[in-house]
């Protein structure tokens, strides 16, 4: 589904991603961990198409298409979804109007007819229930005045509504208390299928107790320096990131 080959990206003169390689297949959940400033969120931003980054090497194929040539909206329409670490508040845009616009723009791209009002409402109700998103939040302005937990739950609700092939969760666990974490994780787990895939970016192993990954990768200094299974996350929790850093530093010196 997703093939990242030697991906490099910089911001102004600073090289942030220094050659990322990753293959994600349908049905898989990949966790990306790493210390602060290792490039985790940058990778998510580059995949979603944030213009701030200048991609200066490598390629990304999504279902065989060159992802890097597509605009952010076309990437979304092809089936990529980024759950933001800090979802934006947009006063005056109602959540429901926003979702209807998004769904219909995606459907139009795929040459599908716009959803009937009735179908849309039915879908909204079902998905709200599935991810435990309160109905009263749906009619409010997009994320305006939402608590940190409500914002993250709204990201998962959007994920449920838009049904992407690949969802990238960028530190979705940050700022969540244990109850919110459970609700968000339950939502994600219900949406998992053998047709979609997830990239879960997180700092802590805690989230991975709820969303159990098939693979764990450690990102450090713009590269994936270690990959393994879910046990790797436990090891990181126990030993910290320092032991990961060593070999890379040596390599850079050489």
């Amino acid at each position: 589904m997703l093939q990242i080959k030697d991906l490099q990206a910089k911001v102004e003169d600073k090289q942030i991603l220094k050659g990322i390689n990753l293959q994600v297949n349908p049905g898989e959940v990949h966790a990306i961990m790493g210390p602060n400033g290792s490039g985790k969120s940058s990778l998510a931003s580059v995949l979603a198409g944030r213009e701030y980054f200048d991609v200066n090497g490598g390629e990304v194929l999504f279902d065989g298409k060159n992802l890097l040539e597509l605009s952010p909206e076309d990437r979304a329409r092809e089936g990529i979804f980024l759950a933001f670490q800090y979802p934006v508040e947009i006063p005056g845009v109602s959540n429901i109007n926003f979702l209807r616009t998004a769904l219909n723009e995606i459907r139009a791209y795929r040459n599908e007819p716009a959803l009937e009002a009735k179908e849309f409402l039915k879908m909204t109700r079902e998905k709200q229930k599935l991810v435990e998103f309160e109905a009263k939040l749906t009619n409010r302005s997009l994320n305006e005045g939402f608590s940190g937990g409500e914002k993250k739950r709204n990201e998962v609700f959007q994920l449920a509504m838009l049904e992407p092939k690949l969802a990238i969760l960028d530190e979705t666990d940050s700022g969540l208390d244990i109850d919110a974490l459970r609700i968000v994780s339950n939502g994600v787990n219900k949406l998992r299928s053998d047709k979609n895939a997830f990239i879960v970016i997180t700092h802590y192993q805690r989230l991975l107790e709820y969303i159990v990954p098939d693979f764990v990768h450690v990102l450090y200094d713009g590269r994936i320096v270690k990959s393994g299974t879910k046990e790797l996350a436990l090891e990181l929790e126990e030993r910290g990131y320092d032991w990961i850093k060593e070999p890379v530093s040596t390599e850079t010196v050489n």
Partner: protein
Amino acid sequence: MTTTSSLYDQLTTGFLDRKAEQQPDWVKNLRQKAFQQFEADGFPTIKNEDWRFTNTAPYLKEAYHLQPVHIPLHEHRNYGHIPELDAHEIVLKNGLLNEDVNIPGLKVLPVRTALQQPALEKYLGATVPLHNNGFAALNTALFETGIVIEAEKNAVVDKPVHITHVYNAAEPLFAQPRLLVIMQPGSKLEIVESYFVKGSERLFINTVVELYVAPNARLDHYDLQIAPSNAHLINFTQVEQDGDSLYNNHTYTLPGFSLVRNNLHLNLNGTNTESHLYGLYLTGGNQLVDNHSLVNHRKPHCLSNELYKGVMMDASRAVFNGKIFVQQEAQKTNAFQQNNNMLLSDKAVIDTKPQLEIFADDVKCSHGSTIGSFNQEALFYLKTRGIGEVAARNLLVNAFAFDVTEKAAIPAVKNYIDKLITQKMAEAYD
């Protein structure tokens, strides 16, 4: 005399020709006084502080017809129709009311007929400042068209009154309509004004609106300023509010009119009045939209709240100038003013100047103004959900305007404006 132009000569001749007409003495005197003042001041120039960003001279050089060329407009009764608006319809063709209007609780007369009533002297032209106010003085000296509306005591008018100003610009036309609304005590009325311009020649509308809101009366006033770019609009609105009255003004200016200057002046003459001024200007092309407002708190315990929002596209320019005066007697005043702007193009310009002058010591007042552009993070967020550039910008502009448009208490008006914002934005990006 400070201005010389063929239009100026036309106006002078026009005034002299009309002096001989049969008119009540008070009207003659008022017109004479107004014309003298106009002769003394002329049209305002950019040397006048209140007009420094708005140069009307280019529009006043050439000759116009002062009397409309009569071309029948009756074949279209649906001029300026607002979808789903259930209203009493009044259509003014080139400023003229051509049919009897029967609306329970209201008296509606052509202004020329109404002038014959001595009672009108108390209202018409009584509070519009003539000094240093060239356009309003000129209108006062020469107006022939327009209407007078009187809401009877305690009358609650069941539906909004929709006044469509239909103009035929088959030939260049300088129009000077007058609108006078007298709200008797306890009356309640919603007025929706809109424009429909036929023909592609120059049309210059110099209008004066006088609104009297008596104790316990309520007037909701909507002005939808949408017309093609061959039209220009100068509007002077004087509002006089008595105690316990409520006046709400909603002014929407969208791409079209190449020049709009609104002067909205409120005198709060009694205690416990409430006034809300909501303005939205979405400007495009080479349009210039200038909103000047003045709220004069004269008595204690009054509330005024002004919110104007602007979105400038293309090479358009907008001006906002809001003045609030709180006189010494006006203790316990609450006066708020806010102006927010979004510049959507490198060539667009906004000049904004909030002003507050307080002579009382126990008041709550605030004012502020902001200028910004699209929130890039919000745009990116919308795009990552599959929403394209045009739709995303639309959502954000509608959201920005929402604080103003949501205040429209007539759903048909709100929906109409929302739809037009979307449409005009899309046209600007084509």
